[in-house]
């Protein structure tokens, strides 16, 4: 039952249960493969966010299907929708409750810039109160655009010097 290529892969009898790799590569591999979102659904973009999580677009393919509605179990906040000034304090408070490391995706025109709501009531871009990693254009963005944003964020996280950050923190 042993295939012909088995000897080319990892062989515990020869390697002795040891895998050599870089700490950054391992840590970032773990982080990118289980990036749990905090769905900050505030307006119509949240409907597209739900579509991304559902079977057709299937966020689970990228390890990010676990939407917990609890900031303490989340890694990436997806701000999807219009952030009013009244809600801005709550958004920031939820972000503050997320555990490090944490990232933010600003989904759609409203979350990124305030969108068409140039008014007294709407925060002109969630980056005024949160450090945003990825902006997604669109009103609302297609689900594919959000998948692309997640992949972009994973690529960004893979480049992070995680080990040295952990040691100096």
């Amino acid at each position: 039952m042993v295939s012909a290529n088995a000897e080319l892969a990892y062989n515990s009898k020869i390697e002795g249960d040891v895998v050599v790799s870089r700490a950054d590569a391992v840590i970032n591999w773990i982080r990118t493969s289980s990036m749990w979102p905090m769905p900050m659904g505030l307006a119509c973009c949240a409907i597209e966010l739900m579509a991304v999580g559902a079977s057709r677009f299937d966020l689970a393919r990228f390890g990010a299907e676990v939407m917990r509605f609890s900031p303490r179990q989340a890694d990436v906040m997806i701000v999807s929708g219009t952030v009013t000034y009244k809600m801005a304090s709550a958004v920031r408070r939820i972000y503050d409750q997320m555990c490090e490391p944490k990232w933010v995706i600003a989904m759609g025109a409203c979350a990124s810039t305030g969108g068409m709501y140039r008014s007294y009531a709407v925060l002109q871009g969630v980056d005024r109160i949160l450090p945003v990693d990825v902006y997604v254009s669109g009103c609302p963005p297609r689900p594919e655009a959000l998948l692309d944003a997640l992949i972009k964020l994973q690529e960004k996280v893979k480049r992070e010097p995680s080990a040295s950050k952990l040691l100096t923190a």
Partner: protein
Amino acid sequence: MPPSPDAVAALKVGWAGVTDRASLDHPAVDVPAADLLGVLGSLKSLQGFDMLTDVAGVDWGVGARPRFTVVYHLFSTTTHAYLRVASSCPDDAAPQLPSAAALWPGADWHEREAFDMFGIRFAGHPDLRRIIMWDGYPYHPLRKDFPLAGIETPLPDAEITAEVKVGLIAAPMAGGPFVAAAGQMNMGDAEPRAKDESWNERRPKPGT
């Protein structure tokens, strides 16, 4: 369905201050602020207007007299008649009217909204707090002298303000306000955009 002008005629018998109000659809009356509660009460108890569908505030502009008007939309679930009752606030600087919340509980939130947006106070309201903007917001945004872009103000939460060190800013209008174009077949053309695109944040408005 009985013709609803009857309600206006019956109302005028008992209330001398009630006058006709220009209206394109349903009958409408103007009522002096002093008679407002009595008129509303008799419309509810004697004429069967058991449903208050809306309470709306109007700001006629700075310097207009009277400046603030409140419009009540009444409906009768038995005769299916609509009636619009409007009453102007006697005082322009501190506009106030009696609250209708004791007659129709639905007036509660409508009057809170009129208070929030226009600063019209309703005497006898059970819980006159802001309903849309947060408590402590210093302005009434739908007044004519309030700019659409807003006025710089701190965020509602002092703790968060200390953390993020930003507050409300006047929104960059960039030729706005942004409005959708009606009657466009192409979705791209119908998208909300500024009517005047000759200026934006980087290019100053011509002539200024």
